[in-house]
């Protein structure tokens, strides 16, 4: 057998091995990314292992509990979810920001162990934007 053919065989074997590994890895690390109403609409989702849900933090809903955890409500246009979270709170996190929580649902309470927050980009509807003078448009 010539060296080139040997290399090809080894390469194909390696690629198969890694494809298999990738497949296994995908299966074990899946997280479903849903909106608040999607979670509420389909109860079946709550049986899934891990969920990531994004929504806006309801104004005035953030409460600090004695054990250092926080609870708050996130909403989208149609529904809301009650969230409990313990961990570092991102600097940007507060009322009315877009928050992303990751965790599981138990008895309609979202138990999060990851929390991300994003500052909304207000480029289009802000006051600055309204009085811009554009040469181009």
């Amino acid at each position, binding site marked *: 057998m010539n060296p080139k053919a040997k290399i090809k065989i080894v390469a194909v074997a*390696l690629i198969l091995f890694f494809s298999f*590994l990738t497949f296994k890895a995908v299966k074990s690390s899946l997280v479903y990314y849903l909106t608040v109403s999607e979670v509420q609409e389909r109860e079946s989702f709550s049986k899934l292992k891990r969920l990531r849900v994004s929504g806006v933090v309801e104004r005035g809903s953030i409460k600090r509990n004695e054990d250092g955890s926080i609870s708050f409500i996130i909403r989208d246009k149609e529904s809301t979810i009650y969230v409990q979270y313990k961990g*570092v709170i991102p600097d940007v996190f507060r009322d009315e920001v877009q928050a992303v929580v990751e965790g599981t649902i138990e008895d309609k309470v979202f138990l999060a162990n990851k929390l991300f927050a994003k*500052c909304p980009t207000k480029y289009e509807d802000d006051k600055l934007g309204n009085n811009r003078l554009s*040469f181009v448009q």
Partner: protein
Amino acid sequence: MFNNIGETALFLSFLISILGLFSFSIGILKKDDKLIHIGSRCVVSTFFLVTISLISLIYLLVTKDFSNFYVAKNTSNDLSALYSFTALWAGQEGSLLLWSWILSIYIFLLTISKSKSKLIPAAQNVILFVLGFFIFLIVFIENPFELLLQPPTNGRGLNPILQNIYMAIHPLTLYVGYIALTVPFAFSIASILSKDGSDDWIKLSKKWTYFSWIFLLGGLLLGSRWAYLELGWGGYWAWDPVENVALMPWLVLTAFIHSSMAQEMRSLLRRWNIVLMFLAFFLSIFGTFITRSGLISSVHSFAQSKIGIYFIIFILLITIVSVFSYQKNKKFLLSKEDITSLVSKENFFIFNNIFFLVITLTVFLGTIFPILSEAVTGEKILVGPSFYNLVNFPNVLLLMLLMSIAPIVPWKKGNLANLYKFVFIPLLISLVSGIATFILLNELKTSLVVLLSILVVAVMLKEIIIDFKVQLQDRMEIKKIITLKARRYCAFLVHFGIIVLILGINFSSVFASKYDVSLEKGETAIFENYKIELIDTYKKENEAKSILGAILILHDGGKTYILNPEQNNYKYEGNREINKETEVAIYSTLTKDYYVILVGENLKGNFNFKIHINPMVSLIWIGSLISIVGGIILFVRKREIND
């Protein structure tokens, strides 16, 4: 006034780059040197015009001229001069202008270089096309010189988490590296379009690939250091889409730097190298697209914008041109030689490439998984960090194995018996260290990493010792030996840095621990072998912010460390939604980082802290720096004896 100057210069540069594109294209087709010369003139003018435009924007930023929309969006009166300057790349429009300027420097350097290669005009044409696209974006879509009818009295300010020296230079460093990839890409296209059967493009590209590699690694290092110091989650890498797209071009470029040696030395893998270069450039544009378009949601919240569609068109165009020219002319790229043995350097480079590409593919798949799954199943599904770690770990081990033996295997045909003889003692040492690690720590992954690390280092040391022994017997001066073997020693230095980096990543991720502590003033908490005491807390105010701080003493064994975490609340928040910022307190030693976050004051008046003990994080920064130094020496070195 500077608004007008900047905008006019920008618009002119767009027209001139189009003129340049036409004269280059026609000049190359008709082999008309005059037209090519005109093209080069256009390049020089474009460079000067973009420079004028950039200086205008910097002037507007530093003087805080709020009649400019971009300035009003990204600076405020309380912002220091340094960060007013770095606000240049805090927003979309400024970033794109900076991007164009850097690319215009590269094409300018290429134009004034003394190289007489036939590939230069075609390469200039390709770069000018890319530059033209970016200038088009700034002139017509994201204009940094937009004016406001009524200038506000204060701008909305720079996001406080961006007011950090690492963050100030990290994007710039990444840009410099990313954009430099355009040049070797242009050489590869030029080579294939001109049906030039030579390996010239590899030689022309070499320094550019080193340059880009150094800056990409530097950018990744600065970015993770920033995340570690500033974001306050105790980690430095999260497999976030924006991190991933910065990593991928670096991975492909690393693969290319290895496989291009096979072409340089033996004229092998000629088609493959072209494909790799296409891929590296494609990934760098893809990365810009992902970070700038907001297509995949990421913790890095960049502005969503309208440039996405133009990027898609641009990427498609680049892909079509690359694939088409490759298909048409690949017959000119047949290798004259062939791989003759499994045990040979060239073959090991092929395996190196396979592993690097598998890692890249894994990262790519993980990054676009939400889009793929939504298209196929209608559900948005993500893959977590465990996905990347699971697939990449065996790849990294295999790469380390290659890293140990490939450098000492000769080209063409190696001898297994000789190889075995050479690595016998290093292998013995590394096996012993691996087993010892396993007994001590009882952790398989770490033991494997240690085993292979020691193997790589031991083989390198043996090689260096033998080198010096032989040459000193021949009465050669040490300086001469080093010059003679410079390229190889630089490679060793880079490899050594990567080994240190891998050890740092392994130890800090496997053995990290974290604790939640709630303390009142004067109280002491004990966890495992550590004792921590809250000495004092304070509240301070200055013009820009109010500060809540704590002073703690941490005891570990006989040593004590003073830690001072803070929480800042910015008073003037402008239009940004962030006004809180956590200042993490870190005490770094070589073996451990003590990392303390002040979470806040709770209802009972106690203070909550998060304490991370991260072992060997320092090795990550040290290792990357060693590799960067190795890369820099490779880059600045002039002589190429014995290469």
